């Protein structure tokens, strides 16, 4: 669980954060803050699917489910089984 959190957080920081001074935590809003927009959410979903070998149905990939690293982990775990 902790490992997954760190992997996702690291990916978000590497790919979506423009200002290196921005502090991002597991609870930082990603979608509602605009850090990850609706178009970029597609690449974030693709990362999760490729990394954890899962398939997330589009109806489950809501802005709310993708809004923080913590909520993403909950979503991913649902499909890892």
């Amino acid at each position: 669980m902790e490992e997954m959190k760190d992997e996702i957080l690291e990916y978000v920081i590497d790919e979506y954060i423009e200002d290196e001074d921005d502090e991002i935590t597991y609870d930082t809003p990603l979608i509602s803050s605009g850090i990850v927009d609706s178009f970029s959410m597609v690449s974030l979903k693709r990362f999760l699917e490729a990394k954890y070998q899962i398939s997330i149905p589009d109806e489950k990939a809501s802005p709310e489910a993708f809004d923080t690293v913590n909520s993403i982990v909950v979503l991913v775990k649902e499909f890892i089984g």
Partner: protein
Amino acid sequence: MSNIVSYEEREKNFDWSISEKELGYKDGDIINIGWYCSDRICEMGKADKLALIWEGLGGVEKKYTFDDIRINSNKFGAFLRGLGIKNEDRICLFMDKIPELYIGFLGVLKIGAIAQPLFSAFGDESLHVRLDNAETTAIITQRKHVGKVRKLLEKSPYLKYVIIVDHDGKKPLKERELTFDMESYEEPKDFEIFPTKAESASVLHYTSGTTGQPKGVKHVHYSLISQYLTTKWVLDLQEDDIYWCTADPGWVTGTSYGIIGCWSLGITQCVLDTGFSATSWYEFIQKRKVTMWYSAPTAIRSLMKAGDEVVKQYDLSSLRHLASVGEPLNSEAVIWSEKVYGIAFQDNYWQTETGSIMIANYPGMKVKPGSMGRPFPGITAAVVDSKTFEPLSEPGKIGLIAFRPGWPAMMRTYWENEETYKSKFKNDWYLPGDRASIDKEGYFWFVGRDDDVINTGGHLVSPFEVESALLEHEAVAESAVVAKPDEVNMEVVKAFVTLKAGYKPDDMLELSIMNFIRKKLSPLAMPQEIEYVDSLPKTRSGKIMRRLLHAKEWGEEIGDTSTLEDDE
């Protein structure tokens, strides 16, 4: 009663002088959009009226009266002038939807410089080609976007200043970087607004075409005449309205109607600078008591997707008029909005080049769900044959949308690209590049683009630009980019690629290509799907046949393939 009162009557008795008179403008006068949107409103006795209610993440709020807008835009102007920036210099505004974007836009116009707003999600390559084309003198930006600007400084010698509006002093500034703090900057005394005239350049918005680099659409201060009246009659803004235009001023709707239209009418607007979610949008409408809401089909379809139940959790009774623009608003969305909000979204049609609304549904006029509506009074619109460019008189016949040039907000040229500008006119019609039909009652019905440009979420993406960028990825040998149908965004970008020797197609490579384009160009341009192919269909002369790939995606007839070199 609506501002337009009767579409038919307005159409019969129309003249653009209606707008000129209301704005107190006479031919040959000085006309400066910056002044009209702030100083004039103050002189009309509305200095203390709220102009902008801004909300950021976590409910952070800032409010500005029209007098605040006047003073702060003067500060911007004085600061820029102090740097030696003069009229007609291009000044890029590269910010999120923060107050400095809206106010800085007017400040740039007040000194006669040309405002070049660019969407802050653009990657460094997208930013560079647009700055390069305009030979932009200065860029006004935020700390969070400075990294992208720094990447292109070396190859942008014309860019003299990088102005950061929220520098916190934690990190040292680099060469060409300056700070400007709007709140603490001293109010300039005797600030003089540059005496721009009707044909003085005002705004340079960039738009994408099928081939070549993005084109800078040049607008002039006289565009105000169209923008003012279309705001009044189509968006129906009235004195006590609280207006919410969800468009980003990096795009034309965000400036024509998110700054110029509403503020030239002295209307209070509110801005939400956070990411999209149905709950945050409804909460915003409820909290700000929004009365007029101007949005886009992609957002409306996303709200539909969020469902009816969430709507019931909020009090949206303040809403009295809803309008939409960006791509065609499907009839389901119109009907749904009437069901859940009690008012239907009314679609309208225009584009970056037209500068203002051209075809619309109007308050009080019968709405035909799925139709773009009827031409704005004073606009001569037709659907013309794609070969003869003669108007098609038969109802329902599909042809090219065409406008007779001459309305005030029409672009004056493409920046440094007069040849392409001229190519947009045929048989004395201006052709925006879209296909439509007209029914018996004169309503226009959108059919699609007449070229390969991809309309995703209301924004145009050039397949050429994405294909060129794809070739810079280490694994990509060849690429072809087409539109793919999408339930929410109407179209999204899909790329077909062949790989260089030594690379194997897999999920991580696909992700790497997607992110490469997202960062280089923009999230809009990022292919939402990548299909690996062994070869791309080409003509005998070697040109990639996008048409074939497009037809495959849309389940259409492939058509003539006689020139095809290699059919997969």
